[in-house]
C-alpha cells in the first residue's frame, strides 16, 4: 500500500451537522482523502453494494452512524453479510453513535464487519486508532 495514497472515506449519517463536522475533521487529518457523504442509509447501502462488484484497490474507511431512519447502521451491516469476505477486504467500518448505550459497543466488538466503535463527536485521537498505516 502506497504511503501517499490516502484512503477513501465514506460518511453515513442522517444528521447534516454531524456530517459537516466529520468532513472538516477528516480534511484536516487526511487532506488527500476522497470523502463521500450519505445522509440516507439506504442510498449508502446501494452504493457500498455496487462498489463491492467493481472494487478499487484502495481501502475505504466507513464511518457508519447507528441511529438512522429507514435503515439503521446495524441493519445496513446485516444486509452486507452475504458479501462479508469482500467487505472485510475492502472496507474498514467504524460505528459512530451519540448513544451512550453500552450494547452498541458490545455489538461492535462482536460484529466481524466492524473494526471499531466511536462515540460522537469524532476527534483526532479516534483517527489515530483507525490504523496509523493510513495516516
Amino acid at each position, binding site marked *: 500500500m502506497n504511503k501517499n495514497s490516502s484512503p477513501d472515506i465514506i460518511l453515513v449519517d442522517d444528521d447534516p451537522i454531524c456530517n459537516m463536522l466529520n468532513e472538516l475533521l477528516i480534511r484536516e487529518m487526511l487532506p488527500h482523502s476522497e470523502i463521500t457523504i450519505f445522509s440516507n442509509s439506504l442510498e449508502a447501502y446501494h452504493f457500498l453494494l455496487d462498489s463491492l462488484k467493481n472494487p478499487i484497490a484502495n481501502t475505504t474507511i466507513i464511518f457508519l452512524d447507528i441511529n438512522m431512519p429507514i435503515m439503521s447502521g446495524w441493519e445496513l451491516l446485516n444486509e452486507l453479510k452475504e458479501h462479508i469476505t469482500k467487505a472485510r477486504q475492502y472496507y474498514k467500518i467504524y460505528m459512530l453513535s451519540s448513544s451512550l*448505550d453500552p450494547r452498541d459497543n458490545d455489538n461492535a466488538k462482536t460484529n466481524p464487519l466492524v473494526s471499531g466503535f466511536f*462515540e460522537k463527536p469524532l476527534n483526532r485521537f479516534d483517527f489515530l486508532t483507525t490504523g496509523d498505516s493510513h495516516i
Partner: protein
Amino acid sequence: MELIDNGLERAFEIVAGTAPQAILIVNKLCKIVYSNPKVSLIFQYTTDELHGMLIERILPEFNIHESVLMQMLFLDEESIPNPEPIELITGITKKGIPFQLKLNVASIQPDVPHLKANLQNTLEENALKSEKDEQTIRLLSFSSAISRAIIKSKTEIELSNQLCRIAVEIGKFEICWVGLPDMVNNLHNPIAHYNATEQDKFVLTTFKFDNNGPTGTVMASGNYYLSNSFEKEPWTPELKNYLWSRGFRSYLVLSLKKHGRPHSTLNVYSNSKTIFTADQIEFLNGIAQDISDALDNLELEKMHTAAIKNQNDTAMLLNQAEAKAHIGSWRINFKTGISKKSDEACRIYGFEPTEDNVFKYEDWRTAVHPDDWGYVKQMDDEAALTLSNCIKFHRIVRPNGEIRNIGADSSFDVDDDGKPFGMHGLVYDLTDKLNSAAALNQSEANLRLIIDLLPQCILLKDINGEFIYANKNYCDLFGMKFEELVEKHWTEIHSSDKYNTINKHDAEVIRSGKATILRDFIFVDAKGNKRYFDVVKSPMLIAGSKKQAILGVLNDITDQKLAEEERVAILDDIVSRNKSLEQFSQMMSHNLRAPVANIMGISSVLELPNLTEKNKAELMEGITKSAHVLDNVIRDMNKILHLRESINVQREVVSFKDLVRELKVSLGDILENERGVIKTDFHEMPEYYSIKSYFHSIFLNLISNSIKFRRINVPPVIDISTKIHENGFELVFCDNGIGIDLEKYRDKIFGLYKRFHTSAEGNGIGLFMVKTQVEALGGSISISSVVNKGTEIRIYFNDNK
C-alpha cells in the same frame, strides 16, 4: 358433644380434619368439646389434652356468649388476604408462648321448635320403631290368646280359624292360613284362613305346590320354612310377582303335627322382611308345638290343663317382658265395667301396681292430658263405630303431675253374635324414646349446622351422581336451597362446559379409591361472580346402606387467585413501565446526546487552523440548530412526563365533530397549502365521555402525520369515523399517504423517536404519544398500511357508554 354415627359425621371429620384453619367447638361451660388436628399443631397440645380444657387456657381473651349453646371457632394462622375484617386474638401455646391469630366465631344454636312441631310424626314413627321389645310383647300376647283359643275350641276347624284370626289381629301378620295339604295332587287345601282376599283364596286353592317348595319341605321334614327374600326362591315368577304385589316381604310356614307327624301347615305372611328373628321363629314353633299337642290330645280335659299351665307361664313371661319394654296391657269388660291393667300399665299411668289393678273409667279419663282429650275421644268414638282396632299417641298426666308421652292400641272383644263385650290393648311409654329421638335430632341438627358453618362448600353425591347432601355454602353457589338440590343429578345444576372436568375427576376418585384434588376449578356462581376452587373429592361408604358415594370439599381460593391475578397485572404493568423507562433512557442517551455531541464537536472543530469563513458560519449555524434540537427534545420529554401524570384530569363529553372543527382551525394553513381534505363520519358514536386534551393530542398527531407523510403531488385525504362494536367502539383514521412498510417496521412503529421516512420532517414522537395516550385511556391501537396507498389506524375502546 356427641356426634351421631352417620355419613354427616364422617363428612365433618374429613372436612374439619383437613381444613386449613384450626377449628374448635366450645360449649357454654367454656370447655373445648372438639378440636381438629390443626389446633394441636398450633397449640402443641394433643387432642386428648384439649378435650374438656377451658378455652381460656389457650385463648385467654376469648369471651363466651352464655346465651349460645355452643360456639365454633375458626383460627387462621397465615395471613391469607381476606376482605372482611377479622378479630385478632392472642393464643398461648403449651409452652406458654403467645402469638397472634385471626379469629372467626360462629354460634351453634339449633332451631329446636321444629322438633315440637313434628312431635306427632315422631311419636308415630317411634311407635312403629318400637322394635323387638314390642314384637316380643305381641308374640307373647299372641301366645296367650292361642292358649285361650285352645281351651275354648272344640273342633280342629274352629281351633284353626281362631289361630288365623289371632295371628292376624294380635300377631300383626298380614294374612294367616292353615292348610291340610293334599300330598297326592300337591294342593294346599286351606281349611282356615284370615284376612285373605278372594284372589288369595283362589291362588291358595288352585296353586300346585312343588315338593321342594315350602309346603313340600315342611310336610316332609316337620321343620319350619322361612323365606324373607323372595327373589332368591326358585318359585315361578307369577307367584313371586303375586306375593310382591300383595306387599308381602316374608313368609313363614310352620308344621302342625298329629301324633308326632306333619299333619298340616300354619302359614303366615308379613310385609316386613325382618319380622321373623330366630327367637321369634323359635317362639312361633313353640306355639305350633302347642297346637300340635292340642290336635293330638283328644281328651279335652288334658288339653285344657296343658293350656292353662301354658297360659300361666306365658302370663308370667308377659309381665316380665312388659316391664322390660315399658309396655303395659289392659282389658276392660263392658258388662262389669271393670278395667284391669297390667303391672307395667299401672306404672306407666303413675300408679303403684296392686293385687288386682282395678282401674275405673274416670281414672283413665283424668289421666289423659286435657289438651289431648279431644283427640283421644274422637279416635275412640271412630273406632267404636266400626269396632276396629285403633292406635293413639297422646300425653297423660300422672297423679304426681308428671307428663308422659304414650302410645296406646286397642281392640274390641266381640262375642259370637258380633257384639262387643270388652276391649283390650297395649300401652307403651314413649317419653324416653322421644327424648332420645329429640336428642338425636338435635345432635344431627348441630352437626348439620356445624357443617353449614364450615367455610368450605361440601357435597355428597351417590355413585350415580345424585346429591345426597350438600351444605349451605355449596347450595349458595347455585342459589338453591338444600331441599331443591337434594336428589338432583349434578348435571342438572352445572353448565355443560364443566361436564368433562367433573366426570374425569369423579372417575379418578372412584378408580383410585383415594382422595383426589382438582386444582383451580373455575366456576361462576349464582350471583355471577367468578370463583376459584381447589376441589378435593374422596370416595366413601354411606353408613348403613354400604352404598358408595363421593364426598366433595371445595376450598374457595378466589381471594388468593384474585390476588395472584392482581400480582400478575401489576407485574405486567411494571414490565411495561420498565420498558418505557428503558425507551426513555435510550432517548436520553441518543436524542438528548446527539445535539450535545454536535455542540461538543463544533467547539473542538472551531479550533482547527485552516477553517474558511464559510466553514465558521456553518459551524455557528450548527450550534444554533443543535441548541434548538436540544430544546425540542427537552420539551418533548416534558410532554411525555406530563402525560403520564395527567390521567386524573377531569373527564368531560368529547364531541368528535367539534374536535375536528377546532383542529381544522389550528391546522389552518398547513392543511390549505397542501389542499388537504378531512372527511368525518361520527354518526355511530358522536361523542365520548373522556379526557378532552388526550383526544385533542391523538387527533392532532394522527392528522399531522397524514399530512406530513402525504404522497408527492397527491393532496392528502383523511377519513375519520367511528364504528360501534359489541363491547366498545372504534375510531378509524384513514389516509391516502405514502404508507409504511409494516413487514419491516411493525415492531417499531409506535416506538419513541422512530422515524420511517427520510423524505419528511418528523421528530418520531407522534405515534409514541398517541399510543401512550390511548393506553392511558384504556384503549388499544392498531395499524395497517400499504406502501404508496395509504395508512389506516384503528383505536379501540372497550366501552360504549
